[in-house]
């Protein structure tokens, strides 16, 4: 409340001083509508209004941005896209190729963006070697969330490899708990699948399969092994997993019904809301076998072409503000993710976020930093969709062998390229 009053004052003051100077408007399409997420964007709105611009909110939730993308397409077709839209991963390139996005190189140069983020991240933000989008945060996807209480009761050890995972899961199952909490939605299936692939195959294999779509890798024996391991996890989930929201799965870990969950670090929000402390009530460890790698899921805003010069200024201000330390800190504290800006003071962040940051920095140098396939970072939406279909169908069907799944995967990826 105090913060709010303060910012109101700031807005009032700044509007007197600078409203006449710029009165640009940014219309921002995003799908952050609930709780912590909404508060996080509200911070951005305040920071922008402090600079005298107006924020026109355009929130469309649903399906991890599915609905928002439908709306965006129709806005683009009708000839008036918003000035900024939350677009992720390779979709940025698609929009760039269609000529909708504006070039942010001026802002980027002035603020030395290239030195602020790892190259693998800035590559995603560029089309034709020019910045067209701004990253907001980094989520680590390959986390394993652990309820230590259950591990103690079952006499199991927190796993660091997939073999250990199965050992521990057996013990936990015998002790009467659900070893792995899971929500059987296509993207969650894919989240587990990619963690298995990364844990068994390593970052090089992961990149070949999901970024380069190398046919040999997709049909390799390693991939068959990945599919087999993935399927062998099913007995460790309860039978009611299909269709379950991820947060209900998380609450199974919180309530002590399930021992583990493979989920990105947004799961932290659920633990925090239930009043649980990291390191004590729950543990965050890298998914088995992925200690030295990091699957990233980055939220970003792509900037569209706008004509009005005032609005263009507002848009540039928005782009600049997103990467400023002030916003990066507040936003990521709220959202559970880590700043995309390197070298930030992490004092206020919790231990999971600190681990995540360290690992982000070290993997970006070692080559262990890979884009998440399940979250649209590594590939276009159509190839991603094709992979989802095969992975999710294989996982839910008893009729397909791992070998067949591998062939189907290769075929589906090829068909949608």
């Amino acid at each position: 409340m105090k913060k709010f009053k303060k910012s109101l004052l700031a807005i009032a003051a700044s509007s007197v001083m600078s409203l006449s100077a710029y009165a640009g408007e940014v219309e921002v399409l995003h799908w952050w509508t609930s709780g912590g997420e909404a508060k996080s964007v509200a911070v951005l709105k305040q920071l922008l209004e402090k600079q005298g611009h107006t924020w026109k909110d355009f929130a469309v939730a649903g399906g991890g941005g599915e609905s928002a993308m439908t709306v965006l397409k129709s806005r683009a077709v009708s000839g008036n896209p918003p000035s900024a839209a939350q677009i992720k991963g390779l979709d940025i390139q698609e929009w760039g190729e269609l000529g909708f996005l504006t070039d942010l190189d001026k802002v980027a140069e002035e603020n030395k963006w290239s030195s602020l983020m790892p190259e693998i991240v800035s590559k995603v933000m560029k089309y034709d070697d020019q910045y067209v989008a701004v990253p907001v945060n980094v989520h680590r996807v390959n986390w394993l969330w652990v309820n230590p209480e259950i591990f103690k009761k079952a006499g199991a050890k927190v796993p660091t490899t997939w073999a250990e995972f199965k050992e521990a899961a057996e013990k936990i199952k015998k002790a009467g708990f659900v070893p792995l909490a899971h929500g059987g939605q296509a993207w969650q299936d894919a989240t587990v699948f990619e963690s298995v692939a990364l844990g068994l195959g390593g970052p090089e294999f992961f990149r070949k399969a999901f970024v380069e779509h190398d046919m040999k890798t997709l049909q390799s024996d390693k991939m068959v092994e990945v599919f087999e391991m993935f399927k062998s996890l099913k007995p460790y989930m309860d039978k009611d997993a299909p269709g379950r929201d991820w947060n209900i799965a998380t609450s199974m870990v919180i309530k002590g019904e399930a021992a583990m969950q493979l989920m990105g670090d947004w799961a932290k929000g659920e633990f925090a809301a239930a009043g649980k402390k990291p390191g004590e009530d729950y543990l965050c460890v890298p998914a088995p076998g992925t200690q030295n790698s990091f699957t990233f899921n980055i939220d970003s805003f792509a900037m569209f072409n706008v004509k009005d010069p005032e609005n263009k200024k507002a848009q540039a201000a928005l782009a600049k503000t997103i990467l400023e330390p002030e916003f990066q800190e507040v936003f990521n504290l709220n959202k559970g993710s880590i700043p995309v800006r390197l070298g930030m003071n992490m004092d206020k962040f919790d231990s999971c976020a600190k681990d995540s940051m360290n690992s982000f920095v070290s993997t970006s140098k070692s080559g262990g930093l890979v884009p998440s396939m399940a979250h649209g970072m590594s590939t276009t939406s159509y190839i991603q969709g094709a992979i989802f279909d095969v992975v999710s169908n294989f996982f839910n069907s008893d009729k397909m062998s791992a070998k067949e799944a591998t062939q189907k995967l290769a075929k589906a990826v090829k068909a949608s390229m």
Partner: protein
Amino acid sequence: MHDNTVLGPQTSSAKLGRVFIYAILAFLVLFYLMPLVVMLLTSVKSMADIRTGTLISWPKEFVFDAWGKAWSSACTGVACEGVSGYFFNSIKIVLPAVLISTFLGALNGYVLTKWKFKGSDLFFGLLLFGCFIPFQVVLLPMAQTLGWLGLANTTAGLVLVHVVYGMAFTTLFFRNFYVSVPSELVSAAKIDGAGFFTIFWRILLPVSTPIIVVCVIWQFTQIWNDFLFGVVYAAGDTQPITVALNNLVNTSTGVKEYNVEMSAAIIAALPTLLVYVLAGKYFVRGLTAGSVKG
């Protein structure tokens, strides 16, 4: 209407039958009420209750905070002002769209039954096809058209969309109703020199009340509940309530508050529920009066 006493029980053994009928009805009523009951119960639970209990259990205590929050302070974007504002947006969209589409439907039905011309039957057939077109198909071309018309992201544009895709239904309703109005009345009036509109106002419209009720209920429900057009063609602060509800309920990486979600869902459903509860009687009557050709 037939006098259903003739089908009533005549023997005492039929009494058993009646008990049976009531038992079946009671069972069915329970089944139909279930989702609404689950929603109502959840909306008055506390989050702690929801987290620890089963989702369809009886509340430990009744808390009504969620309702207030859903109405005026839940977040649906950067604004945390609840769904109240969007509620009124919906009204602004629904009222004109229902009125225009009903009026057009009445005129169309009138022409298609009493002033038939060559090709009018064929046209009716072509129009009916419009009932069946999956709306997902029209999303992009409609966006382009609205852009050309300068109506993109306006309430007026959204009203137009609803009128266009509601018209096939309203026309169908009125046509089927007017078919049963004796054409002799119309031809007699024509001989007396009454014009097109005079006949419509004086003869057709006065007897149309039942079908107008059916049509308004149908259109009101369809348009109020619409999500697809609302989400695609409305801009941020003019979004209808279904879109706001979706924003509130759907979260990718946020914490869920089921009690607030359920309260908001019930608020979003109240107008249509009210229409069915209050006007349900007239709905069946209206159907009886002729939209069902029997």
